[in-house]
């Protein structure tokens, strides 16, 4: 298998966090994994992105030129990376913040930020997107993923963990 994922949004939306979580969840079952953040002068509000590659074969470069899945948390990210895909690529778009229509056959539209607001905190929109991704491409079984997320967030405020899990399930069900 080969799955190349780009997650993009603005700093503070938790783009790097869900990328890292996805890569960590895959460690048990997928032999080759790379996670690469856009590092540098990133600040809250600026563009932020990360790439996760999951593969059964050795991964040459942690940076890909095309992606099998692109997760867009905001408009800037969508504008910047939309060229780097193939006809089959899946695009998951946060329609709360990406207003420009994207014409594609393989598209999943999530009103993530608004849904997150409904759950009580706009900041958990990232977990809604992660849930939506795993529902579409179960590279890790959603049940295992939920268990893993609880482990990874262990030590944080319990109500915060529950809120993130709730967001993850919301994404999963949509």
């Amino acid at each position, binding site marked *: 298998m080969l799955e190349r994922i780009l997650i993009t949004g603005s700093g503070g939306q938790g783009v790097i966090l869900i990328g*890292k979580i996805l*890569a*960590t969840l895959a*460690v*048990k079952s997928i032999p*080759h*994994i*790379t*996670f*690469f*953040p856009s*590092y*540098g002068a990133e600040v809250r509000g600026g563009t932020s992105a990360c790439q996760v590659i999951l593969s059964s074969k*050795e991964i*040459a*470069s*942690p*940076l890909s*030129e095309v992606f099998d899945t692109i997760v867009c948390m905001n408009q800037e990210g969508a504008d910047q990376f939309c060229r780097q895909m193939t006809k089959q690529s899946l695009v998951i778009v946060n329609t709360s913040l990406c207003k420009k229509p994207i014409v594609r056959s393989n598209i999943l539209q999530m009103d993530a930020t608004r849904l997150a607001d409904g759950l009580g905190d706009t900041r958990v929109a990232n977990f809604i997107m992660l849930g939506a991704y795993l529902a579409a491409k179960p590279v890790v079984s959603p049940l295992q993923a939920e268990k893993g997320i609880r482990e990874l967030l262990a030590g944080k405020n319990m109500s915060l963990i529950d809120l993130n899990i709730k967001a993850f399930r919301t994404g999963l069900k949509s």
Partner: protein
Amino acid sequence: MAKRVLMNGNDAIGEGAIRAGCDAYYGYPITPQNELTAYMATHMPEHRRIFIQAESEIAAINMVFGTVAAGKRAMTSSSSPGISLKQEGISFLAGAELPGVIVNVQRGGPGLGNIAPSQADYFQATKGGGHGDYHQIVLAPNSVQEMHDLTIKAFGLAEKYRNPVMILTDGRLGQMMEPLTLYTGRPPVMPPKDWAVNGARNRSPNFIRSLYLVEGELEALNIKLQKKYARIRKDEILWEDRLTRDCDVLLVAYGTSARIAKGALTVAREAGIRAGLIRPITLWPFPHTAIAKAAERAKGILVVEMSSGQMLEDVKMSVNGQVPVFFEGRMGGGVPLTSTILKRIKTIARIKKRR
């Protein structure tokens, strides 16, 4: 089977140093190696070891000098501009025959440059850097696993030869995360340090210096150093060989460039082009013989680097004009693309065979 964890390259070096029995770490912040300093700040105190954020890079390397002179294990890390500042200290370590591990997570240069990955410090690392006739052992990992494993090796080599060892890597390997199997063995065990300045109770005092003013003394030291370097050249050269037995096109690359070259190599083989790769793991000592041997029946060599062509000179020296050597590289933080390397491989594969 040992458990796999996901870690970035900088953290993997830090954890490697801890597992190698590093007693003290001294650092000064600079991107893209900050995760390493942060990791040591968190974890060295947990192991009751020393972490100091020094007032400068120069202070940090001299703290390493003091610690290793006292017979303890020490490491410092930085990125290119900071490593330039450490050169005097490294030359002093070499002159005083002291171990010590230095990590360079390279970024674009010259000057303050940028924070993108680079391999432009090859000359500095392998050809001296500081003043005087000395060498440091230079290890070049190409994965997060190797960042970890080679750090443990570095501490062993440093003490085995009483010589500074540099881990030469770059921002991309420092930042990327990969699954890693942590080292669970014992720290490397090395000969007793009867030379250390750790209190002269019940023995005559030891004296550590790199200043030799008496006529002939310094020459004698240099002869001794050169003999040591000859031993290192004989015993410690490491490289990875991939599909060179029948290769028409020989790729030579290290670190991040080698990862990308491997990608191009796989595609080339699938297209029926006989390509192979030598990946130097020690940059000093350099695998000259392995390259010469792998190039014997090749039509040409392609060196891939994130520089203007520095290792290129060592590769040319290896084949001494017997095989044409080509170069593909990018500078100032640029990283070569698989597709570009592939194009170059195809061109070399079309060269008419030499007699």
